[in-house]
């Protein structure tokens, strides 16, 4: 399977569509619009990569996610800031203990999942903000092994959470109630079928039925795997060699969006010959 670069969105600069210092998280909505969080704001781009709107965030964002109702959730330090689709603030969830550093967010059946890199785990809340349970904390390491400082996960259509555990060179699968269901991936050194370096993959997204897209650092690349850990594709074009913690999102047409945190740009790739089923 091969991918080709479709376009590059944003970049380092002072223009309205650019980021000055930081690009942390990306997300897609149902219409395929891209939400990028960095510096101290959220920017929305249309499917062609043109800036649609932008708005400021109260604190520097670490992550962004779009809920089923179109609300935009922005993960920050100690809190989550929630906006409507137009960028008007709705409310703020504060929880200094469970939202130490919110580096990923996800939704499933009315539940909100919060990746907290300060605690190296995921917390599940109901829609009202009531805490329900903790995921990926009950192990000898008392959390995920994330020397890279980011908890990142995706949720598939069955409510299975796929979370990057880079220190173990794995993507681990958890149920919503926190049971470890299994994992895929292992350290394979220079062999690209597995994961390399001290700690990869750093980020993960569900890429379709039984497919995951992950990103790695040093050298930076994105890869497509099936749930069993079979490597499907490698995408390694154009990333800055110093980039790490590249957030990733995949749309319904199989297009892969990868944030380069050094170039402060989002690279868009599309599968040659159409999406994988």
């Amino acid at each position: 399977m091969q991918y080709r670069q479709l376009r590059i969105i944003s970049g380092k600069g002072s223009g309205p569509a650019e980021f000055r210092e930081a690009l942390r998280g990306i997300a897609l909505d149902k219409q395929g619009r891209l939400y990028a969080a960095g510096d101290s704001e959220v920017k929305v781009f249309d499917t062609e990569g043109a800036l649609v709107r932008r708005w400021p965030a109260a604190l520097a964002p670490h992550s962004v996610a779009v809920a089923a109702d179109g609300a935009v959730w922005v993960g920050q330090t100690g809190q989550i800031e929630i906006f409507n689709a137009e960028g008007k603030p709705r409310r703020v969830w504060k929880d200094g203990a469970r939202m130490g550093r919110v580096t990923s967010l996800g939704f499933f059946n009315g539940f909100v999942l919060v990746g907290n890199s300060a605690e190296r785990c995921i917390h599940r809340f109901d829609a009202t903000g009531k805490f329900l349970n903790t995921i990926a904390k009950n192990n000898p390491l008392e959390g995920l092994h994330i020397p890279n400082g980011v908890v990142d996960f995706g949720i598939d259509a069955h409510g299975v959470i796929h979370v990057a555990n880079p220190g173990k060179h794995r993507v681990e699968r958890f149920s919503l109630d926190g049971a470890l269901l299994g994992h895929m991936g292992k350290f394979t050194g220079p062999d690209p079928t597995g994961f390399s370096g001290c700690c990869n993959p750093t980020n993960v997204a569900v890429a379709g039925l039984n497919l995951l897209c992950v990103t790695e650092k040093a050298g930076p690349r994105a890869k497509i795997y099936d749930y069993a850990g079979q490597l499907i594709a490698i995408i390694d074009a154009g990333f800055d060699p110093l980039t790490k913690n590249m957030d990733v999102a995949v749309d319904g047409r199989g297009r892969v969006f990868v944030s380069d945190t050094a170039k402060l740009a989002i690279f868009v790739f599309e599968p040659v010959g159409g999406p994988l089923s």
Partner: protein
Amino acid sequence: MSDAVSRRELLSKLVRGSVLAGMGGAALFLVKKANGEIVWQVDASRCVNSRLGEVGVEACTLCTSECVVSLSAVRAVNDFSKCGRCNVCPAYFDITSAVNELGLPSQKLCPRDAITRKMIGAADPEDPANNFYEYVIDEEKCDGCGRCVMKCKAPLGLGSITLKVRYNKCLDCNRCAISLSCPKDAVTQVPKMAGLEIKLAEHTE
């Protein structure tokens, strides 16, 4: 005329004052150096092996080859507060070597085998990756070649390992041979402060 004389006198006094101040500063520097208050140290933000942005290049080994001290007065030091305690440490393992039956790289990186890897806590028999690891550098073996430093820095690692001049080994030469050869001017004379002296490797036990 008297104005011109007074200007000359003023200039003369200024020059004399500057010279005296310079001599005083130099004398103070020499006194401090003699008292061990001024020492040679590696600036990690300049050193090729630890500065960010230098990727895909070989480690610089001048600290080993140029120092007049046996093995070198420069040693690699692991700051445990920054270490990721990884299962596969790129400063310990040669991560490009073949993977062995344990799922780990088959070769070590350090040519002098100066780094030891120790599991923290009890082993998980069901999952060997379920542990943090401590990496301790034996400074008596280390010759400051910087290979581990180069592999430890971001984006591959966290940059917890840096090169440091060990004051108890440094002869405090007036013209440090490493300093003269360092292409990045990374070895400089700095005030010795107690806080700068990173403690020797501390074990968790």
